[in-house]
């Protein structure tokens, strides 16, 4: 904020703005603390493997939200990063069975980041729908590559990935150990995204999203900023994919299919694009729906229900569930 003298109205506005931000930040910290508390005890009541699936997809959605909500870029090819993380990690851990699990996951994440760099360099210069279509096309090429490769197992998938030992001694075959590790990974990813958003870099990103020509005229290297957001998003998506592969001991073409790219868009939209909690909420709802609907009598209706939710979200809940809830809170508890 400049030090120029402001009139009392402006000063009042600034003060109110700051108070709101502090209140929001305090609220977020409370939510986060509550979340951690619940997450620590959840596996004793709910099936841990289901919770782990939720956390992996939540991380995926958070990473996607970073790109869409904060950098304003809609990618239709994020499945490629999820799959790359999964396949590379799966391959490394299967080939080098003595390797510590976190090294395998790191390998998958780095591979995803590298792929993200390639995609980003090719796509960043385009805008809007062209950007989305390039990412889709590139993801389809990646899908084809994985389908044809022998190391991925093609249609059968990469099976029998060992859970291994974390840091060489914590046995991840135990669901509880695995769960806490996955929780730690999620928290790490989430906090990383938060720090990024609230950093100076994050501010520039916000400026670019709100008014790109002005940002350019101010001298910011817009493409470099977007590229970094893309690579970060790709890396964290890869991390989600790597972790997921270790949890389920399986990496398959489902992760690379364009439907997966569509699913993460749904999760993010449903939860609330550009919100902090949105991706987690959206991912939880979609994963829960898919898991529990498909084994019940409503199984055949899963796609229809998801479609209806999509449509309703676009028509009415454009801010997503979290956005809608936030508005509700603001209206009623101001």
């Amino acid at each position: 904020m400049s030090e120029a003298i402001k009139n009392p109205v402006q000063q009042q506005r600034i003060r109110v703005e700051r108070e709101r931000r502090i209140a929001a930040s305090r609220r977020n910290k409370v939510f986060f603390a509550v979340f951690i508390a619940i997450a620590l005890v959840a596996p004793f009541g709910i099936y841990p493997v289901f919770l782990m699936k939720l956390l992996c997809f939540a991380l995926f959605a958070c990473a996607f939200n970073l790109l869409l909500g904060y950098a304003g870029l809609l990618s239709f090819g994020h499945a490629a990063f999820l799959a790359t993380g999964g396949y590379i990690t799966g391959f490394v851990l299967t080939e080098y069975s003595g390797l510590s699990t976190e090294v395998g996951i790191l390998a998958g994440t780095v591979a995803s980041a590298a792929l993200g760099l390639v995609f980003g360099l090719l796509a960043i210069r385009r805008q809007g729908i062209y950007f989305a279509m390039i990412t889709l096309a590139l993801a389809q090429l990646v899908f084809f590559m994985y389908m044809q490769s022998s190391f991925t197992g093609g249609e059968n998938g990469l099976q029998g990935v060992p859970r291994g030992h974390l840091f060489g001694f914590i046995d991840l075959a135990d669901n509880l150990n695995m769960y806490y590790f996955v929780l730690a990974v999620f928290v790490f990813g989430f906090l990383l995204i938060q720090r990024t958003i609230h950093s100076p870099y994050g501010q520039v990103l916000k400026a670019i999203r709100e008014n790109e020509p002005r940002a350019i005229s101010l001298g910011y290297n817009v493409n470099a900023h977007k590229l970094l957001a893309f690579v970060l998003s790709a890396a964290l998506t890869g991390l989600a994919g790597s972790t997921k592969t270790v949890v389920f001991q399986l990496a398959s073409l489902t992760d690379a299919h364009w439907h997966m790219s569509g699913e993460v868009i749904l999760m993010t939209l449903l939860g609330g694009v550009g919100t902090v909690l949105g991706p987690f909420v959206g991912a939880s709802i979609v994963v829960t729906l898919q898991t529990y609907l498909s084994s019940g009598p409503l199984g055949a209706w899963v796609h229809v229900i998801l479609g209806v939710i999509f449509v309703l979200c676009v028509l009415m809940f454009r801010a997503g569930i979290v956005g809608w809830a936030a508005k509700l809170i603001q209206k009623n508890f101001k």
Partner: protein
Amino acid sequence: MKGLRKAIGLIVATGLLSGTAQAEISDNEIRIGYLADMSGTYRDLSGPGGLEALKMAVEDFGGQVNGKKIVIYNADDLNKPDVGANTVRQWIDEKNVDVIAGLVATSVVMAVNKIVEQENKLALISGSASSSLTNEFCSPNHVHWVYDTYALSNGTAHAVLSEGGKDWFILAADYAFGHSLEADITKVVETGGGQIVGKVRHPFPSNDFSSYILQAQGSGAEVVALANAGADMVNALQTASQFGLAQSGQKLAGMVVFLNDVHSMGLDVTQGLMLTTGWYWDMNDETREWAQRYHKRVGRMPSMTHAGVYSSTLHYLNAVKETGSDDTQVVRAKMIETPINDMFAKNGTLREDGRMVHDMYLAQVKTPAESTSEWDLYKILRTIPGEQAYRSLADSQCKLIKN
């Protein structure tokens, strides 16, 4: 909290039982999980019909084994290995399910097998086609009941070769299943004195087959073999019919053809098609009687997979009854000991590698004139004895056999 109490109870019970694991039925229930594609492209292969067949088996058995109730769970695997694997994992972790039945897409089956092997449960595979399940991927925790790619391609290829088809063109789906069928056909044709004059691998799945049919026509082959299944095979057959493939003198051989495929395509397109099947509803009084019962419940005639689900489930339950245990290895050993004699197979044997060897049947699709009712679709040309149809143990790469 209920989960916690159950978990503790299970731990205690398992601890108490571990000493006497042999002749006990865990949880005092036999729990069967039915996993198949219920809404996707393989729905009619096993799907909801297979679940009915499973229920029929349980009901015919009496609904309980030595006083212990039989409970059935079911889920849709959406043809995705991760969905299928998760479901089975959850069934075993939360419900201590004893045996998994159905199992269609090979990718799902392989993922499920890994889990079932880890947890020492049993999988009764009826839907999947891959012969590698009892070959390089065999395990002491699953059995393969109805058919496999080896038996199908062997049966059909041999038959067509012996009818005078020497030059072959193979149209294969470009994934593991198609590749393995292609390999099996090639082996049979070449050792039988024929030759492969051309082949093409189409992406899986493909929308338009005109280009591939044109290539088949251009190859000059006498026989065009379809090394694919489901929608791709149907599409290829229909396109072949439009391009007059059969009219110009080329013969079509379908490797993996199910009754529901022929039914949906209609006899106009499929008449004369040679195929191998593990079972057909209209073979004898026993098969007809069971098929009519099935038809009353489902509204369609059963395919070999449905019959296989019924047969494998009954065989399993009988083994449980005989041994008084639901311990996987005990029951599996009993299943291997006991020959299979039911409406599905006569003198069938379950081998150590998990392969259920039984007679296969060479069939030909009837012409519209020959067919007298909606489901009167095949004529059985001859029986192929089990030992001839399936891969012999001598050729096997199964780790359970190699000693």
